[in-house]
């Protein structure tokens, strides 16, 4: 086996171990969407058909999802234990990205050392690690496949079949694939601005992919497009939440979240690739950066997702800058200190990426529901009427539905859901008992679940009128409280 593949495999193991060590520290999952995926996978495992009407979420609502991911997880359950599927597999899938980043970076630079360093960087992008570790996320499949599709397009001669298969598969899995279609359009525009002729076969592949994504998206999300038009892309995110996007985003947060190394090297890589070399692949990757920026600017994608994607792209672009640096060092007197420089660079990566990643991921692990909170929700499932409705943090809605098996007021899957974002905030934080109880009446709230995360998210210690006769404490532990609503 080639030495570079061994090193690459070591990078993969390093990334995987890093993620696994963090992930196994928590019993639960760090993101609420993990519980959404768990519930739907459970449902498919039991019924072999997807849950179209969710009786618990928003106390009953229609779900818009292709459920390919849930079917895949349910299918794997036939051969593998749940612990592996839900705890380990997502980490493996996210870690696999280093191979794909390596492949793309190598195609871009034709330099395996640069590509390897790029793969190493991609494994430890802080915002990527902290948002993907310890989750059951559809992006564990989507992100590697999107970058693999990109690789297939870059090597269309040899990967045509895979490109076609993925073109059908990707839009079926998740609508985020549209970013690739948008990027391909930007790619065509960028090349025409630079008067570079796009390869005929690539042009044909791009037309095919864009048309297919459009067709599949319009077939699957027909109802949303008919109801909301282009606003469907906003996924019905409540206006209050929408307004809070990008709050607190500044240069320092960007440096911290993406890492100073990929940020600087990535930016240099873009300049080298586009302005100096006029590299076809650099234009393709720049088009992806542009598409990501466009979607972020228009707030059409979640900020964290956009940043994760940008981080990986910058890691790939770093390979161009690293490759140039290696070539430059090789023609200078520093060439004899090549190994020392290499080691110093790896240490620099560790210092600027590894520690922020670890700190971010540790926070994510802490955000996973504690045993106290899970027990409190289990208490609800054993001690409350089956049709009771539980009010809680909107970012724990899926957790509440999963662990308590009770109806919720709201969660963060907003598509086709009524806008209750402000009302949940009012019910949990209002000083006016009349206001909050009126809303609770409207939503038929029976129990209120207050977790540590609720306290942090809503900046509260407890319900404002917890001592009034409208609320009765039914369950209390160190990290969770359950009130019964009596009025």
């Amino acid at each position: 086996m080639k030495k570079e593949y061994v090193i690459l495999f070591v990078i993969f193991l390093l990334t995987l171990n890093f993620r696994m060590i963090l992930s196994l520290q928590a019993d639960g999952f760090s993101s609420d969407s993990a519980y959404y995926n768990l519930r739907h996978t459970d449902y498919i495992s039991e019924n072999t058909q997807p849950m179209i009407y969710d009786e618990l979420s928003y106390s009953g609502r229609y779900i818009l999802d292709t459920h390919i991911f849930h079917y895949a997880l349910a299918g794997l359950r036939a051969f593998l234990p749940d612990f592996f599927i839900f705890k380990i597999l997502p980490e493996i899938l996210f870690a696999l990205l280093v191979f794909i980043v390596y492949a793309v970076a190598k195609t871009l630079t034709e330099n395996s050392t640069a590509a390897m360093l790029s793969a190493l960087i991609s494994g430890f992008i802080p915002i990527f690690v902290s948002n993907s570790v310890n989750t059951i996320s559809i992006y564990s499949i989507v992100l590697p496949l999107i970058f693999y599709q990109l690789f297939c397009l870059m090597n269309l001669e040899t990967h045509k079949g895979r490109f076609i298969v993925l073109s059908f598969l990707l839009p079926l899995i998740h609508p985020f694939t549209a970013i690739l279609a948008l990027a391909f359009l930007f790619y065509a525009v960028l090349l025409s601005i630079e008067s570079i002729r796009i390869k005929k076969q690539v042009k044909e592949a791009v037309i095919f992919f864009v048309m297919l994504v459009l067709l599949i998206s319009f077939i699957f999300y027909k109802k949303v497009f008919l109801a909301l038009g282009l606003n469907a892309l906003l996924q019905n995110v409540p206006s209050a939440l929408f307004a809070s996007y990008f709050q607190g985003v500044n240069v320092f947060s960007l440096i911290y979240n993406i890492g100073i190394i990929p940020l600087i090297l990535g930016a240099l890589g873009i300049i080298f690739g586009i302005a100096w070399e006029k590299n076809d692949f650099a234009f393709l990757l720049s088009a992806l950066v542009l598409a990501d920026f466009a979607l972020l600017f228009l707030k059409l994608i979640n900020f964290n997702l956009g940043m994760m994607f940008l981080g990986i792209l910058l890691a790939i672009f770093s390979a161009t800058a690293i490759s140039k640096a290696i070539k430059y060092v090789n023609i200078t007197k520093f060439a004899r200190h090549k190994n020392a420089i290499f080691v110093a660079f790896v240490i620099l990566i560790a210092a600027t990426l590894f520690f922020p990643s670890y700190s971010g991921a540790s926070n994510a692990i802490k955000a996973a529901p504690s045993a106290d909170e899970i027990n409190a929700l289990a208490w609800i499932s054993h001690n409350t009427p089956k049709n009771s409705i539980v009010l809680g943090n909107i970012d724990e809605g899926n957790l509440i539905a999963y662990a308590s098996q009770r109806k919720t007021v709201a969660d963060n899957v907003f598509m086709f859901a009524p806008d209750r974002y402000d009302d949940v905030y009012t019910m949990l934080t209002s000083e006016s008992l009349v206001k909050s109880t009126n809303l609770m009446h409207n939503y038929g709230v029976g129990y209120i679940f207050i977790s540590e995360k609720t306290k942090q998210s809503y900046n509260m210690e407890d319900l404002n009128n917890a001592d009034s006769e409208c609320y009765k404490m039914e369950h209390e532990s160190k990290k969770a409280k359950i009130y019964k609503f009596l009025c």
Partner: protein
Amino acid sequence: MKAKRQKYTSSFASILLAIGCVFSLLIIFLFRSAEKLLPGRESYFLLRIAENPAFIDALSFGGRFTAYPLGLPYLLNLLPWALAIAMPFVFGILSIILFFLLLRDFNVKPRKTALAILLLSPSFIYLFNTLNTASAALFLALLGFWLFARKGGIRVLSPLVIALIPLFDLTIALLSMLLLLFYVFFKDKESKKLYFAALALFLASAGIYYSYIIKNAGFSWPMFNLWETGFNGALRSLLSDLGAPYGIGLFSLILAVFGIIAVWDAKYENKFAFFSIAALLVTSMFFPKALFMLSLFVAVFAAIGFMDILNSRWENRLFQRFVLLIMVCGIIFSALSFAQVFVNSEPDEGIVKGIGALSELPNGVVFSEYTRGHWISFAGKPNVMDENAYLAPDVNERFEDSQMLFKTRDIEEAGKIIKKYNIKYIWIDAGMKRRLWKEDEDGLLFLLKYNPDLKNKVYDVDGVEIWEISEGAYAGSGYEIR
């Protein structure tokens, strides 16, 4: 042998097209139940006016001068119900024939593909499946164009036909004149005299008819938006896949772009088409009826685009076949998706029953959202306002008052508006509830639920509620209810 096979294929395609044409024109007839055979709202308005065409409309806006074209109502007057069902079909068949003849005269290829795309176009399905003024106007426009493009003496009839269009639909009439101008200017400069004759007749008929209307109705213009505005609004009025009531299919539009690119090298020969498309595209942002004419051009260029993809040399045949397949699927999907929405569109059976129930109640002004106005007047009751907002009396004031009444929880405020328009009934249905209120105790719903003077529900079936404002309900406030 090969020629024989080609002839056979061509005949087969023609038969298939004919069947497709009939099917496309009978979608509503085939799939919508007999009780609610007329979809939409305009058809109810036209049917009502057709039964008694006059220059005073006692029901719209509580009574107004008939400030709309009366061409179609007069045409329907003989047998209103039968013609309301049959006429769109007849206009559809005739329009398709004229469109085909025009393509042949202009030597546009491929004609059959263009025709197939047009038949699957949502705007075409809408136009000729329900009673509306644009279907008659478009037929006349096509007839006028066809006559205009003839060589013989018959072409002198074209100014007469064109002069009739304003009596059916002013938007289509103005656009027809504009397109004819482009045609004369870019394609057939020798027909200037005939164009001026058509223009003179057009101005005479439109001028006389509309100055009479404006003189009697006064000039008032809605200052509110009946449609969604902004970029999303513009797209939503253009593309049926994004929710346009009679838009263009996304994939037809994409293919049309491919078609335009394909003929771009011969752009100077296609100035008429390009200018027409640009003008129609811009106009459709403000007057959606322009989409009916735009869809004809889109069908032609989409057909050219399709044939270009089919005939050009692709490096990878697999991608080529897939792209063609996707385009065909996309066009069919747009048509089916639109047809499904259209067949299930309002009024539903509940609303039709509600209209029947309303017609049996004693006379009185009915308040509802303006989109319900035509149904209310079809039930023989005066409405506060409807969608014929142009040249309507106090249209902006009525709109503001309506919005106020929908939102208010203040009985005094509501009472003033009720008295101002002599409102006797309030019509509320499920569609309105979804659009106008978030919760079931918001604004007017709160008043109807809790105010003893208002909570007199006289009808509540299948999501339609009719509330009667009780006699003497405002006696204390000095309100009189007629």
